[in-house]
């Protein structure tokens, strides 16, 4: 291939720089490195990406056939684009999210499934994205990040399904974020289930950490094996 059709290196297209990249990549048929697209970029001539392809938007890449590395698809993309990419690269590693089309999600291959950047097995991925888990099932997830994401996706009215659901204590942490200890019962268990519901001070994500304690601070410190009189001077 003539060198004038090749772009050497990685390309990261965003909403801020997409016009500049569209100009620069006009007529380019091959990008030797990775291509990441987070804008509505249209790269009509592009046929080959040497490295990884990451798409976070409705990019138009109708001519793209070959991708050297994995394909991260985090949005619904043009039907022609996704069909072409799958047809020519189905043996690559694929990373799909709940934002992908049902068609793409129904394909079989070396696929890893993610919701909000957290990985799930396919069966659980489908249940979480379609909100098919009961509240009990959500709280039973061992992986705290999967539990967090499943709770985010869950219709909160399902909390009413939990028998004897109550809030044992509700307060705020040192960063002004709400925290509470919730309790509910499950069949076959004599002891109620308790969770510390708290917010990460950095990411602001909401977590449920299983505990035996009834108070927030006590539960939080006990999760590190510490007495409630010990304080964190700084938390991230």
């Amino acid at each position, binding site marked *: 291939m003539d060198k004038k059709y090749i772009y050497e290196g990685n390309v990261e297209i965003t909403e801020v720089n997409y016009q500049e990249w569209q100009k620069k990549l006009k007529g380019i048929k091959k990008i030797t490195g990775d291509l990441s697209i987070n804008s509505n970029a249209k790269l009509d001539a592009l046929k080959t990406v040497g490295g990884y392809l990451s798409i976070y938007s409705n990019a138009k890449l109708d001519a793209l056939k070959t991708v050297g590395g994995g394909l991260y698809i985090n949005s619904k993309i043009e039907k022609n684009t996704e069909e072409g990419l799958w047809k020519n690269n189905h043996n690559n590693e694929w990373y799909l999210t709940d934002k992908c089309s049902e068609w793409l999600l129904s394909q079989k291959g070396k696929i890893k499934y993610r919701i909000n950047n957290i990985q799930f097995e396919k069966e659980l991925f489908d249940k979480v994205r379609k909100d098919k888990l009961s509240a009990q099932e959500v709280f039973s997830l061992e*992986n*705290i990040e999967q539990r967090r994401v499943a709770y985010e996706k869950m219709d909160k009215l399902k909390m009413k399904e939990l028998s004897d659901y109550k809030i044992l204590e509700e307060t705020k942490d040192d960063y002004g974020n709400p925290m509470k200890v919730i309790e509910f019962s499950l069949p076959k268990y004599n002891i109620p289930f308790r969770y510390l519901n708290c917010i990460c001070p*950095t*990411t602001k994500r909401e977590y449920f950490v*299983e505990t035996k304690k009834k108070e927030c601070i006590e539960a939080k410190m006990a999760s*590190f*094996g*510490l007495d409630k009189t*010990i304080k964190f001077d*700084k938390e991230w």
Partner: protein
Amino acid sequence: MNYRHGDLALIAIKELPQGLTETKSKVIMIGSGGNDHTFDKGRLYLTIVNQFTIGYFEAVEGTKLFHIEHGEGSKKIKEALIQKGIYEVRKQQEDTHEGMRPVID
């Protein structure tokens, strides 16, 4: 000073226990989701003391902890500046019906 860095805690102690061997790694704790807690300067002594305490850390002036999510700044890897001192390294656990279990993320 006591610090919490996601599911990792550094709790100030007066002195290091005797007989520790320095760990030649910059990873204080491996994140189960692949997001490790790392540091730049200081000495790390990993040793399982109990289900919570997984080692000791000696921070020097300007020691920073690094993690993709926990810390400050706009860089991809966030930074958390900690004070010079000796710390116990603790890992967060969940107290479940099946017993204590490390927080899995």
